[in-house]
């Protein structure tokens, strides 16, 4: 792996604005402004996040819901602009975020394929060549001229995945989309994803499936309520700590220092060892009983 920087994220903070401005409308807004009764709440989705990825790195972002993972990804893809800090990206990015939405129900499968492909930045020539491959991969050969709304939800996500996975980006961003669809397709899409990942791209993966993270990632970023707990290449150790943190439920204290992470990881290993021992014991007693 080369040491060339692919993504550099320096002290990135992203602020959301919340409040009831969405629903109040223009008339109410003017009145509230005049009476000084207009308030917006600020909400930091990400606060001071810093990390650097080299070419070929695979970053896993972990953290519970509302930790700011998806927001951070949006900032990396350029959909959002950070309120503070700086993101530098070298290479072209492809992002697979919540694939199913944004299709047009009244257009056919074929038309939707071209529209989505165009939106993802493919050329017409490329799509002309790959169209059959996309349909075959999605297993929709018999549905090409169906309206998109007539498809089942499984078919929809299969099509979305098949279009998106054609990308040959320098940087790939995956938001919980490693595999979609039913059993057989899940296997196929998982394999396809592995193929892309092992093709040497730099990738960022958001996932709640810990074994997946442990297996694939070379670096890990742990976020909690927008704050960066740690960024490290010690993947297994951090995953241990994170799983222990999750297992302790809501009351668990968020680790702030490396020692606390170490403590969590240690506790996890201990628990694992205990379970192992317990199983062993059960086995023994079981054997004893059967004997």
């Amino acid at each position: 792996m080369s040491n060339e920087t692919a993504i550099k994220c320096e002290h990135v903070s992203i602020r959301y604005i919340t409040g009831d401005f969405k629903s109040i409308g223009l008339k109410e807004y003017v009145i509230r402004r005049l009476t000084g009764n207009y308030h917006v709440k600020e909400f930091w989705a990400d606060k001071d996040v810093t990390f650097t990825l080299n070419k070929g790195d695979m970053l896993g972002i972990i953290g519970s819901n509302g930790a700011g993972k998806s927001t951070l990804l949006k900032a990396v893809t350029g959909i959002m602009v950070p309120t503070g800090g700086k993101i530098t990206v070298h290479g072209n990015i492809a992002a697979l975020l919540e694939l199913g939405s944004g299709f047009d129900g009244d257009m056919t499968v074929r038309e939707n394929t071209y529209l989505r492909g165009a939106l993802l930045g493919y050329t017409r020539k490329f799509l002309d060549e790959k169209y059959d491959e996309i349909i075959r991969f999605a297993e929709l050969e018999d549905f090409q001229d169906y309206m998109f709304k007539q498809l089942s939800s499984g078919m929809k996500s299969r099509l979305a995945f098949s279009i998106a996975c054609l990308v040959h980006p320098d940087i790939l961003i995956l938001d919980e989309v490693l595999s979609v669809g039913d059993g057989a397709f899940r296997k196929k899409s998982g394999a396809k994803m592995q193929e892309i990942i092992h093709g040497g791209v730099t990738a960022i993966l958001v996932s709640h499936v810990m074994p997946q993270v442990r297996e694939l990632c070379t670096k890990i970023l742990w976020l909690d309520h927008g704050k960066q707990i740690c960024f490290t290449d010690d993947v297994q150790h951090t995953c241990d700590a994170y799983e222990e943190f999750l297992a302790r439920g809501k009351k668990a204290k968020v680790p702030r220092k490396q020692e606390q992470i170490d403590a969590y990881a240690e506790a996890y290993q201990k628990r694992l060892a205990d379970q192992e021992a317990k199983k062993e014991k059960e086995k023994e007693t079981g054997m004893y009983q059967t004997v």
Partner: protein
Amino acid sequence: MSKTTARKKTGIVDTMKKYQFMFEELVKRDFKQRYKRSILGMAWSILSPLMTLLVMRVIFTEFLGKDIPHYTIYLFSGNIVMSYFRESTRNGMRSLTSNAKIFTKINVPKYLFLLSKNVSALVNFGLTLIVYFAFCGIDHIRFTPKMFLLVYPSICLLITCIGIGAILSAMYVFFEDTSYLYDVVLTLLNYMSAIFYSVDSLSKNLQTAFLFNPVYVYIKYFRVIVIDGIIPSPAYHLLCLFFPVFYLSIGMFIYKKYNTQFLYYL
């Protein structure tokens, strides 16, 4: 390999090339949504202004049209410009919200959605123009080369609509009731654009006030060329140019300023 950085500035030609295919596909989609792939859908966009014209012709000729020569064409000029303006700005207003699912997931320039909606409205305007000229023939209007000048107000109108559409689409993201308020504005505009009456009997000051209304200004251009067969003064051409410059600058300013903030409101 580090050829593209996060927000690299590229020339406008490169940008157009890059997004040409995307834009074409968006235009196609808007057409299909509009006409629902039926012949009747296409025919309706011509029938609907014709029916409006018929009703207005029957009702207003007695009261308002007695002193106006070629009253049918007078009405028709007003109707096509007003209905183009109405459709184009209304569609433009919804261009951001209706595509929110796309641009909150994929990084694409948002103005493409607005432009694509305007293309389909413009094509519809073109269709009604064909009927318009057919009626000119029936009404014994003399066809002159001067009529080619109508391209000028049409382009000005197109850009004005894009500008206003940009402003409205941004407002519609921030305020839900924009569409209701704008409907009120459109109704008022419909009465203030001298579509079925003449401004000649009004006071001079009031007549000047009409010139602040882009719809009226372009309607008048059409009438002066088609019915009177006269080319408007250079000053009037400048006035026509003022609206697109004015509204497009505001629209572009708003898009620049709020480009990254739309996301929070959708």
